[in-house]
C-alpha cells in the first residue's frame, strides 16, 4: 500500500445522508412482532420474505418495523444465534420519547408485558436531585432476545426509586421461551427449513 496518507471522508466530500435501517438478531419473528409492535407501538412496514432461505440465497428473513417518527426503521432479523449475553449492555439502541407522560405510558406497557426494566439517571458530579425536580432519565430494558434498548426522556420528575449512576444489567433478563410459547411459530416455513 502506498505511504500516502488516506484522505478523510470530509476531504472527499463523502457524507452519510440519514439512517436507512438498523437491525437486531431475533430467534422468532412473531415474538419480535409482539414486542416491537404490541408493546413498543411500532408499525409493520414490510413483512418477511422467506422464499430464498431454503435455496441458500438468504441466511435469514426480516420483519421491518417503523418504531419512531423519523427517518429509518428497525428490522428484526431472523438469526437464531449471536444474541447478546445477559450482562452485555453494548451495543444498545436508545430512542427519545416526547415527555414524562409518554415515558410513564411506556413503563406501564412494560409492566403489563412483564418486561423487567431499570429507570436510571446520571447526575452531574456533586448534583443532588430533589424529589419532583426534572432530570434526564433512561429507561433500560431488553427485547425478548436480549437486545438492549433504552428510552430517553430529558425531563422526568425525580423520585427516590430512580437509580442514580450504575446498575446491574442482568436484572433486565427474562426468558424468551415464555414469549415464544405465547405466539404462533415465526420461524422459517417448514418447506424452507
Amino acid at each position, binding site marked *: 500500500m502506498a505511504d500516502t496518507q488516506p484522505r478523510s471522508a470530509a476531504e472527499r466530500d463523502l457524507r452519510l445522508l440519514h439512517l436507512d435501517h438498523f437491525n437486531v438478531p431475533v430467534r422468532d419473528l412473531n415474538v419480535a412482532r409482539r414486542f416491537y409492535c404490541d408493546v413498543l407501538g411500532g408499525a409493520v412496514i414490510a413483512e418477511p420474505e422467506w422464499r430464498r432461505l431454503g435455496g441458500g440465497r438468504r441466511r435469514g428473513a426480516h420483519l421491518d418495523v417503523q418504531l419512531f417518527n423519523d427517518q429509518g426503521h428497525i428490522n428484526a432479523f431472523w438469526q437464531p444465534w449471536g444474541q447478546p449475553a445477559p450482562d*452485555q449492555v453494548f451495543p444498545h*439502541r436508545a430512542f427519545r420519547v416526547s415527555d414524562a407522560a409518554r415515558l410513564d405510558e411506556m413503563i406501564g406497557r412494560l409492566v403489563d408485558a412483564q418486561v423487567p426494566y431499570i429507570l436510571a439517571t446520571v447526575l452531574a458530579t456533586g448534583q443532588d436531585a430533589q424529589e419532583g425536580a426534572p432530570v434526564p432519565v433512561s429507561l433500560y430494558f431488553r427485547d425478548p432476545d436480549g437486545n438492549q434498548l433504552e428510552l430517553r426522556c430529558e425531563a422526568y420528575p425525580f423520585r427516590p426509586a430512580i437509580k442514580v449512576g450504575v446498575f446491574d444489567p442482568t436484572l433486565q433478563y427474562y426468558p424468551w421461551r415464555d414469549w415464544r410459547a405465547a405466539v404462533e411459530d415465526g420461524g422459517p416455513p417448514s418447506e424452507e427449513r
Partner: protein
Amino acid sequence: MPRPNPQPTKSVDLDSVDRFTLPVRDLAKAELFYTRVLGGDVVQRDAVEAGEREHPAIRMHMCDGVDVVLVQQWYGWLPVDSTNPHWGFAIPGADVDMWVEHLKEWEVPSAMVFRDDDQEAMGVPTRVEVHFLDPDGNQIELVAWDYPMNDRASRGQYDSWVLPYKHRDWPPSSARHLLGKPA
C-alpha cells in the same frame, strides 16, 4: 422494478433515535475510524455510558438524526459470520463507487451486493448495499436506492468472510500518526 424503500405509514409512539452505542476496544482507534473514514463529528469526547460500571465513551454525530456513542467494552464482539446486528445508513447512488474506493484506501474490506429483489437491467437505478466492519467488528452498511445496476457487485448474497480485518493492524501505517489527533 426494484423494491420500494419502505416508508412510514402512520405516527408511532417513539420520537426518534437518541443514540446508538457500539462497543469498541480502543477509543482513539474508533474515533479515527468514525471521523476520518465515516465522516462523523465528535460531539462529546468525555461522555460516559452507564452499565454495571461507568464506561468511558465518545459521542459522535454521524448524520441527520443519528448520534453514535463509541463505548469501551472488552467483550461482546460479533462472530465473523454473523451479519446482525448492523447499522445501515443512506448514501446517494452517485457516491457509491467513491465510498468503495475510500474504504479500500483505508484498508477496510467491503462487499457490494444487489439483492435478488433489486436485480435490474444494466444501467437502471436500483438498490445496492455496501457492507463493511469497523476495526472492532461492528457491522456497518451503506445503502443507495438509486445506483445504476452493473456487473461489479455480488448478486443475491455476498461472502461475509471477506470483511474481517485485524484490529491490531488498523489503521494503515500511513495513517498511524493520526491516532489520538482530533479530525
